[in-house]
């Protein structure tokens, strides 16, 4: 089927952060220099071409944007200064919006004022809910001198709300993941994927989810920088996931009125996780502010919103803890409300609709790539042929 060229896609991608991508004259330097580009999944040039000619279907079915970790070498070596790295970044934003069937993601990305409005609106709702339904703000302290936070906001109620919100977000995210899966699989219509391939690929899914080790393949001039960037990102990831698990699964154990001794896991696990988050998010913000590395030079508003929300969540969480164990009752309650007013929009806006979603899409892209590879190998074996890379 011949593809009818359209010129809208490039405008979309420019709104999403692609810079002078029209300047690209398809020389392929970017693909040649990219340490992660392989024969069967060659990028960034392929993605640039899809954007230039408006091949939306092809772009939506591409896993390539998720395989790029933005080392920036392509942008640094581009003879036309077309910033391929920034295009890949914009393509990820585009895909997050495109996978989302509600269309909210796309709206949030295309207009940052909408995203900011959503965040503030949700925060306001949280505050209103607390004002209306929160428990009494007692100044009575526990035996250890801690604030009775669970009187103000009982953990079992918060927990239920957590689960309700988590369930909703999970449904949204998973339905988007399903669309992503369908589009990617449609790229190779002749490929029959046996169930076994999906199961065998799960190891890849978990490895990449927990380690982001693909990133370390960004070798080249800046190997040390890559490792440092990966480590900072890992701190954010590990701290975030730890806190997420504590809050969603173990809230009753985590949000206690009792002040545990310092060697109690509730305290040191929390300290390590928040410390990692603080370090990771803080240095990410500083790097984007300083614009030294290619990948930090052009931040989209959505990048800032995500990092600032994370930072505020972390800081307010830490403050709640400090105020609580020191018996500052009102300060505890106010920061708790602030903490929730930041945390809720951070999750609702970011998880299914914005930057957070890459936590799911990146490992799933690598997983589907692995599944496709295995399916191809199986198909080749049954056809008694050697596996052949797809045309690049």
């Amino acid at each position, binding site marked *: *089927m*011949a*593809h*009818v*060229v359209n*010129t809208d896609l*490039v405008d979309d991608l420019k709104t999403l952060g692609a810079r*002078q991508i*029209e*300047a*690209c*004259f*398809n020389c392929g330097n970017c693909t040649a220099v990219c340490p992660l580009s392989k024969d069967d999944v060659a990028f960034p040039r*392929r993605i640039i*071409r*899809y954007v*230039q*000619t408006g*091949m939306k279907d092809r772009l939506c079915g591409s896993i390539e944007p998720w395989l790029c970790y933005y080392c920036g070498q392509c942008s640094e070596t581009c003879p*036309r200064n077309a910033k391929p790295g920034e295009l890949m970044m914009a393509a990820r934003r585009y895909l997050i919006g495109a996978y989302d069937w509600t269309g909210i993601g796309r709206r949030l990305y295309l207009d940052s004022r909408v995203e900011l409005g959503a965040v503030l609106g949700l925060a306001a709702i949280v505050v209103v809910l607390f004002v209306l339904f929160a428990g009494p703000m007692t100044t009575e302290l526990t035996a250890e001198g801690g604030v009775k936070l669970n009187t103000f906001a009982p953990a079992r109620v918060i927990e239920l709300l957590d689960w309700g919100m988590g369930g909703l977000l999970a449904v949204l995210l998973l339905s988007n993941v399903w669309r992503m899966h369908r589009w990617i699989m449609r790229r190779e219509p002749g490929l029959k994927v046996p169930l076994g391939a999906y199961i065998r690929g799960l190891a890849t899914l978990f490895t990449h989810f927990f380690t982001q080790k693909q990133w370390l393949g960004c070798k080249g001039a800046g190997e040390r920088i890559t490792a440092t960037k990966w480590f900072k990102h890992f701190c954010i990831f590990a701290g975030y996931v730890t806190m997420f698990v504590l809050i969603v699964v173990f809230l009753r154990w985590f949000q206690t009125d009792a002040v545990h001794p310092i060697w109690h896991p509730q305290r040191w696990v929390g300290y390590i996780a928040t410390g990692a988050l603080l370090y990771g998010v803080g240095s990410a913000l500083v790097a984007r502010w300083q614009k030294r590395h290619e990948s930090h030079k052009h931040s989209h508003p959505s990048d800032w919103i995500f990092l600032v929300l994370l930072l505020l969540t972390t800081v307010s969480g830490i403050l709640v803890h400090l105020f609580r164990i020191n018996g500052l009752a009102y300060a505890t309650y106010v920061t708790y409300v602030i903490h929730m007013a930041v945390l809720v929009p951070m999750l609702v806006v970011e998880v299914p609709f914005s930057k957070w979603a890459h936590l799911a899409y990146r490992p799933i892209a690598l997983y589907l790539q692995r599944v496709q590879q295995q399916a191809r190998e199986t198909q080749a074996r049954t056809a008694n042929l050697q596996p052949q890379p797809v*045309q*690049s």
Partner: protein
Amino acid sequence: MIRGSAQVESVASEPRIGVYVCRCGGNISDVIDTEKVAETIKLVPGVRVSKVHSFMCSEPGQAMIAEDIKKEQLNRVVVASCSPFLHELTFRVAVRRGGLNPYLYEHVNIREQGSWAHHGDPEGATVKAIRLVAAAVHRLYHAEPLEQIRLPSHRRALVIGGGIAGLKAAVDLAAKGVGVVLVEREPELGGRVLGLARLFPTDDSGRAQIDRLVREVCNNPNIEVLTGTVIKGVSGFLGNYDIAVGPALAAGAAGVDVGGAKDKKLSVGAIIVATGHDYYRPSLGEYGFKRYTQVVTMPEFIDLLAGASGDGIQWNGQRIHRIGFMHCVGSRQIEGIHPPQGDGKVNDYCSRVCCTTVLHQAVHAKRRFPNLAVFDFHQDIRTYGRLHEDYYRRASEAGVIFFRFHGDDPPLVEEGVDGFPIQVRLKDWLTWGEEVVVPLDLLVLAVGMVARDNRELVNLLKLPTGADRFFQEVHPKLRPVETSVNGILLAGSAQAPMTIEETLASASAAASKAACLLAHDSVELEPFKARVDADKCIGCGLCFPECAYEGALVRTSVEREGKTVTLAKVNPGLCVGCGACVPVCPTRAIDLQGWTLNQFEAMVDGLLSAPLPSKEVTSESSSHGQTH
């Protein structure tokens, strides 16, 4: 230039020959044993001096030769070095410095035809060098001192074509004090450039450019302008051309104002051909040409864009939103893919200017109408010239979308859908050969340049044309604006597709060359011309049909034993020294000065009798087939 020296050589005097073998800094001596060549050649009779030098063309090398001529009383010189194209003239001058007639010199090429050609066989190459030098020595036994031929000439040039090339050539020639007659077929000067609304890289209009030159031409009393005039007849030779011109009124072109052009005779010394090019005319249906009204050629689009009002480009009453540019229309054609032209050949050459023209126009269109969607269909982008690449970059940055096709699978133009009148369908190699469809409102065919159909002029001037039908120069690098006819030069796109900048450079080059040829009241020609020994000529006339150069051989009547006989005589101005007349002469009355039959025979003797260094080498070289 070499001038005849006062030195007179007695041909009968015993030959005293100097042989000089050049190492060429290793270029020769890395393969050929130059010392052995010099040593062995001493055995050839008449060789008095035989020497080797690392760079014979250097000042010390030349000085050595001049000194030896005086000291050793040499009366013949051989230099074995590079191609005579490079240094024959150098050594003729060196020989004259020594007080010897410069034509008592022979140049042997042992580099291009020796060390470079036989680098795998040093012994064979050495033997070959010895044989070639021996042949040259033998040839010199029969050498005579020669003088350059000096003919009176007109210090006036004819420029054919009043386009930008002709105008520029005329201005330059006049500035050097050479009179110019500028002949233009059309009633107005200016040619094709007048139709170009906007030129790269200066962005001024063609008319502004032409007006400037026309003003200079018209204000110069040294330039005579004949518009509405064509060339009717050409005869003569360098320095002495007789031209007949007349009104351009062609049959059936009644009513064309010839501007008072009338028949006229001109005498000029040199001719500059600046007749320009034609645009390629696409065949019916080629890229939808004439099948869809929305397919236009580049010259048409240039007018369209120049005439567009502020609210957009209109074509046939339709507003244009999406424009495509098709490169290589009528250029880089492939046999079997594209239909042949009138002469059965395809235009396989690149027209060179179309890529930059497309991008220049695209950038301009995008700047005027930013909402215009512009698409570019190319095989390659060849923005080769100074600043041309800028247009490519700017076109990209302005959002022109590029598609690349393979020459053997050109895009198709078909009827459009969804409100678009036409669409282009192609396999886009920038997208891995995927088939893409581009709906368009207008498709511009970047037509290439083709040679003008100038058969009459070609016949009159007897100029060679290349396979591309353009006029051909003698050598693209060494003699880029000269034709094989002495005194006829090329300027501008009559020679090949070129940009206006290149056209102007070429016009200036042709003007300079013509000014050199006409620098004096006479012209000097090499003495290698046929010569008739009147005593031997029996007037049989066999030589006349052999001569391909009209007027080079003439009949002359002389008194012999009381009777008037008709003999052959050579006009040295027209003789090119091809030698075609020599072998048919039954009495050997006709011969070529400097290349006589005797000399050829002597060279064969020299080749065969050359002393060879040792048996071992000889036998080996025989087995390599190096012997003659």
